[in-house]
């Protein structure tokens, strides 16, 4: 009988494992191998070049621009999104929710329903310097001096892109944090109020420690979003990736190197580098999270 059970388990698992191996593990494995070759992407041959591709990465100024921009996004995007989402969630939930809280929650979630490409196209229109919503709005309220060519000025372009990333992802985290706040026992808030805690003290001493785990998850997710950024940059920015590399991200460099320059080997090396960056990030975030978890009795 025992023998039969194993056979059944094997039969049930094998198809899934085979699919996983063919469509997930094998591309990964091939990517690692290809990053050590000069494969062009259009021929059946590739020459093994060792670590040459990785050595080139260090001298590739556009790739370094991309790394810098991804690093800036990695610092800014998760922090800004989490702070904003926590603020909004605590306004909508907790002790004294604002009026119409549930309607707000739905509205905040809207961007999540749109495909990223559509978001990029729409925000491209918003940022249009002549007819865009943003500059038109500024002109309408007499702030003509603040109008800018948002995506065409090197000092503003990356900020403009990051604003869209935050805008498009904040709704999801409002919902995530709202659920976390709702799961905090009401008695704790009541006790805090009896002890004379104000809104700020409640947030800092009660809410924040008890949603720490959700925040940690949010940081990992958002870190990965910040390491990507490809779609928004590709669709929205000047160049794309410009002006002059100001919004270049690793994903875009990789895409261009592979599909425009025909250097799949080198592009794969970028991908492998990005893989290790994401891996490191995930490991750090999880380790940091384990330390700071609070036990609720």
């Amino acid at each position, binding site marked *: 009988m025992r023998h039969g059970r194993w056979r059944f388990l094997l039969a049930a698992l094998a198809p899934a494992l085979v699919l996983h191996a063919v469509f997930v593990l094998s591309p990964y494995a091939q990517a690692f191998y290809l990053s050590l070759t000069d494969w062009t992407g*259009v*021929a059946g041959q590739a020459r093994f070049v060792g670590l040459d591709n990785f050595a080139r990465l260090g001298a590739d100024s556009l790739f370094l621009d991309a790394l810098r921009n991804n690093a800036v996004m990695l610092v800014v995007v998760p922090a800004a999104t989490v702070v904003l989402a926590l603020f909004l969630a605590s306004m909508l939930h907790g002790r004294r929710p604002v009026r119409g809280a549930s309607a707000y929650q739905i509205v905040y979630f809207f961007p999540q329903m749109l495909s990223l490409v559509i978001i990029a196209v729409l925000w491209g229109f918003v940022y*249009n310097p*002549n007819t865009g919503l943003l500059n038109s709005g500024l002109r309408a309220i007499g702030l003509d001096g603040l109008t800018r060519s948002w995506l065409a000025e090197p000092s503003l372009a990356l900020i403009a892109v990051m604003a869209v990333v935050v805008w498009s992802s904040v709704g999801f985290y409002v919902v995530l944090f709202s659920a976390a706040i709702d799961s905090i026992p009401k008695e704790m808030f009541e006790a805090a109020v009896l002890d004379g805690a104000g809104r700020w003290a409640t947030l800092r001493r009660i809410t924040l420690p008890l949603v720490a785990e959700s925040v940690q998850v949010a940081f990992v997710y958002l870190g990965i979003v910040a390491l*990507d950024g490809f779609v928004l940059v590709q669709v929205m920015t000047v160049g794309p990736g*410009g002006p002059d590399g100001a919004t270049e991200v690793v994903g875009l460099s990789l895409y261009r190197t592979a599909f425009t320059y025909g250097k799949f080997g080198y592009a794969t090396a970028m*991908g492998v580098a990005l893989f290790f960056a*994401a891996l490191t990030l*995930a490991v750090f975030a999880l380790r940091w999270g384990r330390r700071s978890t609070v036990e609720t009795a």
Partner: protein
Amino acid sequence: MNPASLPEPYPSRRSLLRTAGLATVAAPLLGACVTAAGDDKPATTGGAKSAENPLGVKPDAPLEVVVFKGGYGDEYAIKAEQKYAEKYPDAEVEHQGLQKVGEAVQPRFVANTPPDVVDNTGAGRLDIATLVSAKQVTDLAELLDAPAFDQPGRKVRDTLLPGVVEDGTFDGSTVTLNFTYTVWGLWYSKALFAERGWTYPKTWAEMLTLCETIKKAGIAPWTYQGKYPEYLNDPLLTMAAKTGGLDLVKAVDNLEPAAWRQPGLTQAAEAFAELAGKGYLMSGSEALSHTEAQAAWCQRKAAFIPCGSWLEAEQKDVTPAGFDMVMGTVPAASTGDRMPGAAVQAAGSESYLVPAKAANVAGGLEYLRILFAKESATAFAQANNTLPAVAGATDGLTLSSGLGSVRDAVTAAAGDAFNFRFRTWYAPLAKAVDDATGELVNRRISVADWSARIQKASDALAKDGTVTKYTR
């Protein structure tokens, strides 16, 4: 298209490490997959050659054609296939009209089973220089020297517009033929100019004077597709080429050590820096996409826009009636230019090639001979308002204002058609030039910086042993 090696959204540390571990173990085994195909070329099945069948097509060999189905559709290609099937009734002709040609044919190139004809065009096209250096394309010399399909006594080579053959030539062998002919210039509304009494300038000095007049009239003299600075590069490089002649163009394409410091180029860069400095570029242009800038131009918010000859077809739906767009040639920088003022920058698109490892190479060549026949080209011009690469294809047709002006420009150039090749040969250099010109006209860098940084990119490519070099 996301980077292939991004991990799943929320991997646990253990699963990631396990994957990485497995990957390292499995790499040498599975790594063989993508690059497993050998180099053995399938025997090309050639038939006997005759006057009727100059390329030696085997009459019953099947033919597979993959065509980019973009702005021009694929009707014209299907018509040529029908002609092929009439001539070789035993051959099975398979047609694919696609938007993403590259995605479809790339794996087939890798597996050494490519189609017999590929129209390598559109956003997802494969980099032609890469295909050439990977020896994936057939030399078309035999086709070019074969008699033209419907013009007795002439070779295919002699029926094409100037520059078409050269445009597809890599190191002395012609590997692609572009079916449409694109000419770059400055576009304006004939109606607007007539209304205001403006005449199209012949020299750059006249251009600047006219710009001042236009600006005073409350219209921006120029706009450009700022999101893609290469649009503004085209007139800049055209002007430089006229000043410095073909030698300048060759020096640039051959990655010569001081190519980008040639006076012709720096003067042209000065000219465009001045155009920007005097405020003749519509404000905000630097952030507009091609559709936005071209729409503003069609609404008469700007007088000139640089573009290739596809503009009229592209703007068909938004051009107001009576706008009468025409293309003018880029004004000459000075009277001492080495090329006549009528010279134009021209190149082809709809880039047809026959893969080297195709099963029916002779059939592929024969198909191109039929496609590049005058009758087929004329039908194309009529249907698409676009100049085909076959000379005289538009003779006797009533043309729209834009296409008429393009044809007139080609006639006036009388063989003085040139093209920079670095854009197809060295895509990274093209990016460096685009970025630099974008910075130049937004006055963030000087002309000296402009030439220095492009030269640096050019030198880096010249030194890079992994890049296949071409010379002309």
